């Protein structure tokens, strides 16, 4: 992880992303005017609003943003696991109609099959590509070894720790050998050291195979160290607020001051977004407090203010 | 004629309830007519309430009697004998007869069966293993020198629910069936069968009569309320007489009652032909019941013989009523 030379260049681009529709077909992924709404008892909630995004083949794009801003939702739209309410989502110029092994997802939760052992979970991803059982087992163990879990190949998910489960999920996604990797905070449950090792591994794979990677992370340093571009999302409405192209040479190290400086810039961007939320939220919470205890959990409505957080 | 209720009885002001059980069936016509005409109610007087219990199978009626939910019941002799023996002679007694006849062997058109001897190699249905028809059939086979397949012979005897018998007849899966009314009539009419043996013809020695339905009384009830049983039997006799004198009115009444109790009426022609093959009598036809028991023992259905049935019949109340009516006593 020792890096010798670092250069930095940051370009803040305004959004909506200014590509023409014709050009969109040249992109690996092209989202245009994506809107996602969820309706529940509390009414319709708009999560993504007019999201425009083009990603080139082989690009490594990092996605950062406050909790609940719609990062997972955006990934789901690209994965074909969630259909946008409006807008077009294209992959290689063709509309995304459903999920497929060409777009592997590492979910925020490990999402392993509990009835399969670690190695069987990885094998599941290999079933369509490797017919021969021995070869498949060998390959699956190879991927498990990559996440340092070869010793636990025969363990069932409930016998693994949280971080180990997440690593099996990573191995499974890599085993799919997909065109596009959609990684939703894949390393959140891992210790810094394991994380570093896996990060290097992911970068190696990316560089060797030219996969397109979209990587959601809460670690801005990590985002800067990894991404060709870092997309900062905002809330209400959920959309891409800032797009930062990171033109630093690779490999980059999170410890390097250049990386840190860049990260700091992004964090400043994000902080304003989060300050807004915190203000909104605590205003709302305050309003709620006055009405609290009306007995109906499903009908929370607004009233006057109150102070927060002094109740313990 | 009996007086009012004994003053010695506990001062239960609530009227006594008599639970009377019967089937919505032609062979139970005496019960159906007597209840419909109010003959029983009149005879028992206003202090006694009659609760009607309609059953479709003898064993359930016996069960209910064992559970003291039936006091007086109309029932086939088979279940009556079983009930008597299973309770070691304690639960019930036969106090009168109700009907005779209404059973026989129907053969399917094209089956080639002309009499019992030609049943060899054929498939014959009976309503129930160990039941009266099964016993009659097997006894007849014995007399003809035949055996059923389960005894190493050639006649396949199948216990088949009467309803299924008709279907299987129509499908040609059965050659003959020993059944009771109204199934004789229906097999003849709807299954294109022929009645080859009218079971009454096998009972020449008892005047073409054999017990089809009898009246049983819960022994404890008889002990506690002999006077009610006597009044009931008086009405029973009255009803048998009335049916004899008014066959058309009676059969119509029975048809109506069946419709009322089961929600389903019998077609008129079926009712008519069934009626024609059934006789009504208050004579329990003791000998025929005991003969059945003998055959049953021979065939291995009963473990006990005739001697165990000593107290099965109690004709004292009936004969008491008959002597009041200046009629000949039943043996």
């Amino acid at each position: 992880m020792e890096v010798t030379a670092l250069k930095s260049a940051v370009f803040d681009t305004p959004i909506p992303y200014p590509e023409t529709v014709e050009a969109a077909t040249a992109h690996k992924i092209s989202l245009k005017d994506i809107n996602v709404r969820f309706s529940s008892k509390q009414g319709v909630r708009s999560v993504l609003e007019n999201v425009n995004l083009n990603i080139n083949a082989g690009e490594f794009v990092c996605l950062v943003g406050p909790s609940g801003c719609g990062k997972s939702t955006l990934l789901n739209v690209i994965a074909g696991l969630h259909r946008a309410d409006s807008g077009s989502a294209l992959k290689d110029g063709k509309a995304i109609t459903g999920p497929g092994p060409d777009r592997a997802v590492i979910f925020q939760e490990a999402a392993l099959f509990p009835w399969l052992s670690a190695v069987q979970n990885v094998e599941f991803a290999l079933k369509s590509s490797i017919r021969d059982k021995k070869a498949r087992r060998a390959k699956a163990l190879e991927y498990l070894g990559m996440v340092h879990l070869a010793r636990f190949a025969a363990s069932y998910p409930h016998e693994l720790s949280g971080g180990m489960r997440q690593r099996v999920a990573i191995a499974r996604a890599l085993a799919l050998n997909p065109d596009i990797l959609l990684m939703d905070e894949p390393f959140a449950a891992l210790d810094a050291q394991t994380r570093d090792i896996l990060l290097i591994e992911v970068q190696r794979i990316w560089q060797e195979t030219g996969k397109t990677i979209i990587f959601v992370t809460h670690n801005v340093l990590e985002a800067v160290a990894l991404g060709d571009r870092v997309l900062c999302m905002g809330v209400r409405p959920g959309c891409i607020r800032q797009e930062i192209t990171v033109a630093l040479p690779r490999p980059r190290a999170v410890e390097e001051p250049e990386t840190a400086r860049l990260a700091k810039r992004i964090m400043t961007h994000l902080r304003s977004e989060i300050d807004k939320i915190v203000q909104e939220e605590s205003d709302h919470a305050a309003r709620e407090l006055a009405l609290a205890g009306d007995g109906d959990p499903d009908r929370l409505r607004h009233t006057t203010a109150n102070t927060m957080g002094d109740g313990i | 004629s009996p007086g009012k209720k004994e003053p010695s009885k506990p001062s239960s002001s609530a009227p006594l309830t008599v639970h009377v059980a019967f089937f919505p069936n032609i062979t139970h016509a005496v019960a159906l007519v007597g209840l419909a005409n109010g003959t029983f109610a009149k005879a028992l007087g206003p202090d006694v309430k009659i609760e009607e219990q309609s059953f479709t199978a003898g064993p359930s009626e016996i069960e209910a009697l064992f559970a003291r939910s039936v006091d007086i019941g109309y029932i086939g002799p088979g279940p009556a004998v079983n009930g008597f023996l299973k309770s070691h002679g304690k639960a019930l007694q036969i106090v009168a007869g109700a009907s005779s006849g209404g059973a026989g062997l129907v053969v399917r058109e094209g089956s080639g069966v002309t009499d019992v001897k030609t049943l060899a190699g054929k498939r014959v249905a009976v309503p129930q293993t160990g039941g009266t028809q099964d016993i009659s059939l097997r006894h007849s086979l014995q007399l003809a020198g035949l055996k059923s397949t389960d005894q190493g012979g050639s006649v396949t005897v199948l216990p088949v629910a009467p309803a299924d018998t008709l279907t299987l007849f129509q499908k040609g899966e059965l050659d003959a069936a020993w059944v009771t009314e109204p199934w004789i009539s229906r097999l003849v009419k709807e299954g294109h069968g022929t009645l080859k043996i009218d079971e009454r013809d096998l009972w020449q020695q008892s005047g073409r009569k054999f017990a089809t339905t009898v009246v049983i009384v819960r022994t404890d009830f008889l002990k506690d309320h002999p006077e009610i049983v006597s009044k009931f039997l008086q009405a029973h006799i009255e009803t048998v007489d009335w049916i004899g004198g008014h066959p058309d009115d009676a059969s119509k009444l029975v048809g109506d009652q069946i419709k009322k109790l089961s929600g389903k009426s019998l077609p008129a022609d079926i009712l008519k032909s069934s009626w024609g093959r059934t006789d009504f009598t208050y004579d329990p036809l003791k000998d025929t019941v005991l003969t059945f028991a003998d055959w049953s023992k021979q065939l291995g259905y009963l473990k006990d013989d005739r001697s165990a049935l000593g107290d099965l019949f109690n004709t004292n109340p009936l004969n008491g009523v008959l002597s009041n009516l200046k009629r000949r006593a039943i043996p």
Partner: protein
Amino acid sequence: MGFRREWWSSYLFPGPSEILKTLGADLRDGTLPIAVKISLTRIGLGFVTAMLLGSITGILMGALPVVHRAVSPLALGLQTLPSICWLPLAVIWFGLSERAILFVTVMGALLAVSIAVSDGIRNIPPLYLRAASMMGARGPRLYAEVLLPAALPAIISGAKQGWAFAWRSLMAGELLSVSTGSLGLGQTLMRGRDLNDMSQVLAVMLVLVLIGVVADRLVFSRLERIVRQRWGLAVA
């Protein structure tokens, strides 16, 4: 004899028009409406009782491994007994009364519900139980506020099985003669069968299926929809 294997025989099997005629007649003379009303009353009482008792025993079986080991195999064994086995007991304990029919109905569904509830509880993800016990929920509160809701999807599925068992048992229980004024669907069905009156049998079958369909639409499917929506089980 050429018709030995025909699938619909006109003389064995009435056509739709004949069934409709029977249905019409049964409706007009009041047999069917009365029978439906009587049977629905009985099933309502019996099913609700079975659900209540079954849930209680099911919770105990599901939550206490000792009870489960002791009772669970017996419950399955008893549940296999056909309803006619319960008839004699019903008569002895309750006489020829409505309560006897109720008893048979309840006995038909009770253990099925117990088994479903207990299995549902035993299949709850352990994480919920850990969370609940961490928050100090135990005893009745644990049962009512955690175990039951967590097992609810399984319980609703089990309720459907219980419903089917209850109906089948009611049909058997109604063979108990109660009083002549109260012919339920079971008696109507049995009469049809006893008389080999297939159009009557099919008419009652139609009514029974219809009741089942309506019950599913009005109760079970609706409950399922609500629960699955709230639990987040609805597949997008």
